């Protein structure tokens, strides 16, 4: 079971995670924070040991064994706009990547926009959901799924999964890892408002496939080209025969 005292000792944040909800089991931590209006404090996190309906993009499942991994969502509802919300998408993966590097010295790569890979295998996925009233974004929830101590993965996966334990070669403290992630996330969030180019550059320095020939699929169509850069909003710039194209979403892979 997650030891909240152990987590709390290491967590140095001022806002993120100061309102902490622990649930033994829930359908989805994102849905919980989006739908429960009584938990509306900026920076609230909800952590669960098991999700019965964990999800990724396109309603893909996120499966995780009980009490071995980190499944949590963070609620952000202050100062969100069309520009910084995309940097929150990228910045959330940056915080996780920095934390894994700091604690375990593992070589971490980010796959656009925010999957985290170690040795080409997926260790973390992040799905953000938000709600807007008219054209005002009222709240954003950032759902993190991180494979921490799980050692076997069954089933079909788009990218081969791994866990930090498998890569580091020893069991890992989830409490220590979560506190590190929240510490880094709070710093990244502050930078998004003060020095967003730093966030973008830190993210780019970990981005796998930048400069490579890639293919990108939106579920229906596949495009190929050179992953030239990301723009200031974080969108992928794909160099194709017809010029530079801005990609808003999709699954990126190396062209083989």
């Amino acid at each position, binding site marked *: 079971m997650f030891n909240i005292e152990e987590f709390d000792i290491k967590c140095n944040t001022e806002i993120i995670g100061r309102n902490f909800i622990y649930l033994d089991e829930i359908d989805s931590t994102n849905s919980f924070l989006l739908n429960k209006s009584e938990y509306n404090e900026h920076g609230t996190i909800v952590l669960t040991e098991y999700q019965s309906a964990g999800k990724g*993009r396109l309603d893909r499942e996120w499966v995780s064994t009980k009490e071995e991994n980190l499944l949590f969502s963070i609620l952000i509802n202050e100062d969100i*706009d069309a520009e910084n919300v995309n940097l929150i998408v990228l910045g959330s993966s940056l915080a996780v990547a920095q934390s894994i590097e700091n604690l375990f010295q593992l070589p971490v790569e980010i796959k656009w926009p925010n999957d985290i890979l170690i040795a080409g295998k997926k260790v973390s996925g992040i799905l953000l959901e938000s709600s807007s009233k008219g054209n*005002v*974004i009222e709240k954003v929830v950032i759902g993190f799924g991180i494979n921490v101590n799980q050692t076997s993965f069954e089933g079909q996966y788009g990218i081969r999964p791994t866990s930090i334990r498998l890569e580091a070669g020893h069991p890992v403290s989830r409490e220590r890892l979560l506190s590190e992630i929240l510490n880094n996330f709070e710093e990244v969030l502050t930078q998004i408002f003060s020095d967003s180019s730093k966030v973008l550059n830190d993210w780019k320095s970990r981005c796998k496939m930048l400069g490579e020939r890639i293919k990108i699929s939106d579920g229906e169509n596949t495009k190929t080209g050179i992953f030239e850069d990301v723009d200031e909003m974080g969108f992928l710039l794909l160099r194709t025969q017809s010029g530079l194209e801005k990609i808003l*979403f999709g699954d990126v892979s190396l062209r083989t």
Partner: protein
Amino acid sequence: MDLNLLKRLIRIVERSEITEFEVEEGDLKVKISKNNGTVQQIIAQPQTAAPQAMPMPNAPAPAEEAKEETKSEDGGNDYYEIRSPIVGTFYRAPAPDADPYVQVGDTITPGSVLCIVEAMKLMNEIESDVGGKIVRILTENATPVEFNQPLFLVEKD
């Protein structure tokens, strides 16, 4: 002055009951005042004796245009525009094989879910901020939309 800070100040004033706000930082003075619900900003040059004035920072566009009822061409009615809060791809239904959230002619209330706009790994659900009837859907399903692009026309109650 930090542009992001300025934007945040404008946002705070816009959301609050405050109609006028002034702050000085070093020799830069910023005054934000709100008239008729829209935020205006005036960046004052320092009144020091500097002979050559520093180049004026380009005044940034207001962070958010106040939503307005637009005069529509449809018979001169005043319809309310629901606009996209982000750059992304517009979806009328929660999944490719699901029914659309709303159709033309549907009655909606504040809080009714109208569509999803997706960007990168962010799924943004857009709720109506007004009650009324959907008069027109301005964007095709699964097409890109820009920030603030009109998506729906609503005849308000």
